[in-house]
């Protein structure tokens, strides 16, 4: 199958050795990949390189066979990221934050108008519902929300973007078991609520080996190197220990 994202010989230098070292990997449509690795292994760096927000020191990232740096700005809409720190816009309300996901397909005047009078409320509500949030909070300020609600607003924004590939950076971090289940089901496109479309291609960094069975493939990172890249069925205790082994 044709790959949608490919990393070839990607290297990112850091102050204390390489943050990523000679990474070669491909992602094909429909794949659901778990990215494992201890803290500092390079998971967030890999996601930042994959979405084009971090340019590698060497190597190349291809999207649909084209260098990601050659993509037109609006074409980046196809790659959606759920950031570990969520990156919500604290000064804006929920609807305006969700609409920020649609900025790639809207012009500046729309962006300004949305700051004055939140637009396309129906679409926002659908995304909120799909993310498991009540539409009552649509005009609430982001600062008034709980941690779980904020996580879901970030997810609703991602759904509003309608990406073909989702890169999720530890989205299950600090969530209770019920919320973990809900967010995971949503990201894995098992749950559909309303007309919101969720593509099935997903790369998700995480620290929960017990959830690995939900994924087709596991990539293990250690000190910036891929030390495991196989089917999730192949991940046993020994492989897990190998990925998390300290240097």
């Amino acid at each position, binding site marked *: 199958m044709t790959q949608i994202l490919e990393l070839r010989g990607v290297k990112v230098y850091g102050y204390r050795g390489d943050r990523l070292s000679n990474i070669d990997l491909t992602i094909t449509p429909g794949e659901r990949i778990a990215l494992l690795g201890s803290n500092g292994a390079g998971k967030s760096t890999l996601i930042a390189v994959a979405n084009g927000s971090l340019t590698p020191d060497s190597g190349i990232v291809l999207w649909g066979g084209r260098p990601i740096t050659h993509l037109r700005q609006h074409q980046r809409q196809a790659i959606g990221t759920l*950031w570990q720190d969520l990156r919500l816009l604290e000064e804006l309300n929920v609807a305006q934050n969700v609409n920020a996901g649609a900025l790639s397909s809207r012009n500046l005047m729309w962006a300004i108008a949305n700051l004055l009078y939140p637009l396309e409320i129906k679409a926002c509500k659908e995304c909120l519902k799909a993310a498991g949030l009540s539409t009552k909070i649509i005009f609430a300020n982001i600062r008034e929300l709980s941690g779980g609600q904020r996580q879901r607003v970030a997810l609703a924004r991602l759904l509003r973007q309608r990406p073909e590939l989702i890169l999720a950076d530890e989205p299950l971090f600090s969530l209770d078991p019920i919320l973990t289940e809900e967010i995971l089901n949503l990201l894995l496109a098992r749950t559909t609520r309303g007309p919101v479309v969720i593509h099935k291609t997903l790369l998700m960094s995480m620290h929960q080996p017990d959830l690995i069975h939900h994924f087709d493939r596991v990539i293990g990172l250690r000190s910036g190197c891929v030390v495991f890249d196989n089917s999730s069925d192949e991940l046993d205790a020994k492989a897990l220990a190998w990925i998390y082994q300290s240097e």
Partner: protein
Amino acid sequence: MNRISLTPPILSLLPALALVPVLAVVVTSVHVGGLQLLFEFFGAAIQPSLDPTVVKSAWRGLQITVATALISWIISTLLGILLGIASASVVWQTCIGKSWPAFLIRRILTIPRAIHELLWGLLLLQLLGLSPWVAILAIIIPYTTLVARVFSDQLDTQDRRALNALLQAGAMPFPALITALGPPIVPILMSYGGYRLECSLRGATLLGVFGLGGIGTDLQLSLQSLAFKEMWTALWMLAAVMLTLEQSINWLRRRQRANETTTNQILITFALMILLMSLGLPWLKGLEIDLSSSISWNPIPWPTLAELIGALNHLQWLKLISSTILLTLLASGIAIGTPPLAMMLWPSRLGIEVQSLIWALLRLIPPPLSLLLLLLSCQPSIAVAAIALGAYNLGVMGRLLKEGLEEQGNSCWKALQASGAGARSSWLYGCLSAQSPSYLAYAAYRTDVILRETVVVGLVGGTGLGWQLIESLGSFNWAQVILLLIVFATITLIGESLSDYTRHRWLRSTQKPALVLDLQS
């Protein structure tokens, strides 16, 4: 549920609407002959006069301005610290258990603060004649009270838990105050002190424009004789000093944040102040400006009640006050709204650097001079005065916005860029949104400053209370002068209260420490 939301980024951009009526008026009043002169002015920037006589004269003027600014800065800072301590509630409460003396001193200090240094300069000129002390005192009087206000505010907003703990343990009031409040307040004071030096330099230049000597006078004379090349000689020299000062202060702030201990900071600051003071006085003397010469005292004849009533009836108060307020609003709109609008429309690195250069240029030219330049090609009006005043303050606001954005971090902006949002939209959402509460807090303070400065352009542009004041001063109508000063001070104090309220409202909504914002403004 209210769907319309005046979000902080929109509130930062909306003031730019002031450009519409202002430009509409200015464009219709432009005459082509004057435009030719404006082009000549800008063309002269790249070929300033290098005639040794011109350079020597500008160099002498620059030295006078810098020495005046230094002396005024040192005296106003030291006096301001003392008055700040005397007007801090925490000091009185700790020492005598009551805070009313602090309140009383604060109220008294509002009067000299409400009057712009230029007005002080013009009044002192009447009282003392043409003495070098006029410019120095004109800066010292309002600046001392400004430093006192900021210092007492900072003292009163410090966390008092450490102080209470020391007092509880039996410490004497003054040692407890110094131990608990000294360490956090010293870095703040140093940072603010640096900012005041910049203000002193600008103030000394401005006073020069109105005939009180220094580089400002050179600039004014060159402009009057349309000698643009000579004017640029002085402007570039002033720019070099301003830039050096800005960079030195930034360097000191960074160093201060990095590792200096409080004791070292105090020692370095006071050593520097004493050094500069001991340089400043002989420096002026070397320039044949003798501060030890006797000062003549020409008291103003106090007007009778009948004269005061006559002045009250004679002046068109509604027109004067409304034009001052309109000028403030238009100039503030231009100053506050233009930098975010320009950065949003041209958010690339190159764009921001080009804009920074323009803002630096706008900060360089004192508003009365830019107004005179504009008047070469436009009819005098509130709109033209608003452009001159707005442009200068735009330079200040642009610099603050850029610095704020640089300190802010760019994670949200990067996230939006990665999601495919366009450069302008992602700047608006990812950069301006987070910065706008702080920016609006600066803006509230700046509006207050602009209100005070209306007098500066009013004097030149024939509008508002400032213009009337110079007319009344020129005709020695002291009854009018006194009434105008009272009205201007009252408006300024009302503006200051409104600005304080708005500023604190925005500061509460930002996660940035209030103290930092206060200092940056």
